[in-house]
């Protein structure tokens, strides 16, 4: 390999290193009085941007019914197999809904594939990023804990509609 050497002679002062050390010390001393950049986390919360992928949640319609129809697309696409769905029949016009819908947040890798694949916009990634807890059991979320009113998730639903171009028309 061709190496080009820069023949730069150091000056006496540079070779002594003491002036350089003093320069460095002066620099760090100045920095000590600059404004701090650390976010004081529990007091100053992180406002997740709309693109952030937090815990996946199920969308609950205005009338309190789940939007999910238990089609199992998310279950089959989920890379770490965090989702378990048991389908069930309802008396509503959309005859199918999840009897049980479980997301094991210990397994979930927040990849967002479930959201992308969902044909009903029924599962979306929320802005919930604080996912620690004390027991394993409490981190397996069931349907009751996953269902979230649509009003809280509408921003993300709008965003994904645009992002994944889910209902694109053939002309576009």
């Amino acid at each position, binding site marked *: 390999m061709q190496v080009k050497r820069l023949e730069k002679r150091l000056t006496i002062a540079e070779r002594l290193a003491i002036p350089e050390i003093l320069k460095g010390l002066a620099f760090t001393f100045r920095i000590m009085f600059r404004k701090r950049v650390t976010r004081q986390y529990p007091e100053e919360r992180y406002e997740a941007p709309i693109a952030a992928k937090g815990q996946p949640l199920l969308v609950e319609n205005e009338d309190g019914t789940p939007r999910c*129809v*238990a*089609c*199992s*697309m998310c*279950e*089959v696409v989920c890379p770490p197999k965090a989702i378990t769905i048991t*389908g*069930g*029949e309802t008396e509503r*016009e*959309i*005859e*199918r809904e999840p009897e049980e819908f479980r997301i094991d947040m210990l397994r979930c890798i927040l990849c967002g594939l479930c959201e992308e694949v969902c*044909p*009903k916009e029924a599962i979306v990634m929320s802005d919930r990023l604080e996912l620690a807890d004390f027991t394993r059991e409490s981190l397996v979320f069931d349907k009751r804990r996953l269902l979230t009113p649509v009003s809280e998730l509408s921003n993300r639903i709008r965003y994904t509609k645009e992002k994944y171009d889910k209902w694109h*028309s*053939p002309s576009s």
Partner: protein
Amino acid sequence: MSSGAEGETRMTTIKVDGVEHEAPLGGRLLDFLESIGKVVPRFCYHPGLSVAASCRQCQVESVGKGPRPGTIVSCRERIVEGMEIHTDSEAARKARAGVMEFLLLNHPLDCPICDKAGECMLQDTAYGTGQAAGRTVEPRRHLPKRKSLGDKILLDNERCILCTRCVRFFEDVCGEPQLTVVDRGDRSYLDTFLGEPLRGNYQGNIVDICPVGALTLKKFRFRSRPWFMTSTPSVCGLCSRGCNITIDVRNNRILRIRPRFHGEINRWWMCDEGRLDFDAYNMQPEEGRLAEPLIRDGEGERPAELSELLALAAEFCREGPALALLSPFATVEEGEAFRDCFAGLDGARAGFLAPGRSARADRLLHTDDPCPNRAGLSRIEGLEAVAPSEIGDCAGKTVFLSGFGLDVLLHGEARTALGRAERLIVHGHRRPGFGNPALLIPARTPAEKNGRWVNGSGIEQRIRPALRAPTLVPDDLEVFRGLAERLARPQEVKA
């Protein structure tokens, strides 16, 4: 369809996609195209039914001699000399895409809800043909979506593409028409005669042959997506017909049973009894399944090692006059091992239960024999067929009842007689419901074991395990071999 019973079939040479093939003269074009590996989509054509040629999805282009130039419906066409067929030409593809678009005009977009998704012919073909979106803006046709056709089947009229497979099934196979297409043109829809619920023991088959999700089985609805299930080929055990079946399992539970083609036994069909009566196989320990060896201990029972139970069973059998009764659900291998157990034992009577004929026989599949392996066990020398009336008085005797299903086949007097036994040893998948068993050895169900069954017409077939047995349930063969060993060498058992 084996139309050629008249000795040998004459062959001819036809051209398919530019390549020459030897084809049976007069054979069905669609069957032939399939046999040489061409993919021809179809909805209404089913090899077990008469030809309706109503869906027009199997169109191919004919350019040579024969029917007429242009697109032809390959399910209806017979092979003639000098035929030249293009399966993938522009015209053929255009014709099929057009049909597809018409079929999808009013088909609801509810694949996520539909139970058929994943094994739906319409879905597969739509993906294959590749038209991503419809061109219509008009509202879709709305029809009753959840219409109960009796206690087994549910009909969704919106999804129906009017292929009439189900209609023809009742006409051609059952010989008793029950379904029909009502009204005409774009208003036509499927319904039963006079809105009566469906009758008969063969309704489930219309769910299998339905190319879309219009007909669904109430028992299976929404239980699982087909791609999550593991399918095991096996044989139905509910009568001596020995229908070939596929067992679909998820999380070690049977969710549904489908017929599997066997030309000489059941063809494409099976009865609803075999299709829906799998709850006994799914029985869990908390529901009464015998999941561990138990010994009667005073009033109660205590769990014990299998070896301890076998040693005790051997001792009991040696002490008194013994009657050993095997279930007719047992496989041939088990029958032989069972006979070997008691072969050298003085005064022992070993046989399999041979119940009387039932009144369940019909002219299609179901036989009057409730035992799946009566023929196989009858062939075994040294194993006598014991009818329930021949059991006799069991007072003072040791009785060994073995195998899945024995308790179901025993009724009334036989139960009372067996209940009087001095010592009752039960080897079964659950408690017998009579007598007071001294020993309870857990047994496997036919869905949990390997082996051979011989059906009523003498065809030997293999059953395969679709489920995992509970951990402490030994294989039935292991029980028989262990017992045989202990009966043959009593000294070692004592030590």
